[in-house]
């Protein structure tokens, strides 16, 4: 990844582990090299919009649940986060 490029954070490793998929299995489903998955997980490569959308489709999740420009919080924290007081 070029140094000037903004890092895209992702939850790919967590989602892959949750579904018990190896990098190779996920890569085969996406039609890419398995090492590309490793580079994406490590933040060394930002996937194209097409690949990011395909990944989202595969995991049946909105794209923003997998990729973000801000560091991602643990999924459990997001699920069980208390709503803001004004909404209670």
């Amino acid at each position, binding site marked *: *990844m*070029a140094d000037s490029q903004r890092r895209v954070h992702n939850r790919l490793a967590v989602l892959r582990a949750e579904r018990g998929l*190896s*990098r190779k299995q996920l890569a085969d489903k996406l*039609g*890419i*090299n398995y*090492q*590309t998955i*490793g*580079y994406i*997980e*490590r933040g*060394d*490569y930002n*996937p*194209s919009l*097409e*690949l990011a959308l395909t990944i989202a489709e595969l995991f049946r999740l909105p794209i923003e649940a997998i990729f973000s420009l801000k560091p991602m919080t643990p999924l459990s924290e997001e699920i069980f986060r208390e709503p803001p007081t004004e909404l209670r």
Partner: protein
Amino acid sequence: MSTTTTSRIDYLPRSRRRRLVAVALAGYPVAVAALVALKHGDLNRWLVLAVFLLLLLPTLAALAVGYRYARGRIGGRRVRLDERDLSLRQQAYALSHQVLVVILIAATAITEIFLTSGNTLRLDAVNFWPVAMWVIVYLPALPALMLAWIEADRPADG
């Protein structure tokens, strides 16, 4: 090349790859410079040739590792390339062009300074072969070497 050696090359850390690229790029000019310097001395011509070949050997080894590392990702005929490979190949070609531009400008400037200082340059087969060899060896190898230079360390298998 055995599978072990191949995978060892695939997983070479970037710092080591960069050292190999530096050796590959600098080795040949150093070997030619040594040959030119020693040729005019009193040394036995076979000894001069041995020194030249000894200096050339690491260059050839580094070039071979560079080619092996890129393995089809520059030519892209045998290996199926995904979007990251294609993006990396474009970056490698762009960097090769930049390196080539720097080398050509430097060579032209040095020649110009040499000629404007009252020297003459005789262009014959003996003087031209190092240039011809450089072009033949390095022009095709540059993109593979640049790929080895830029690619981040491979993630561990998992």
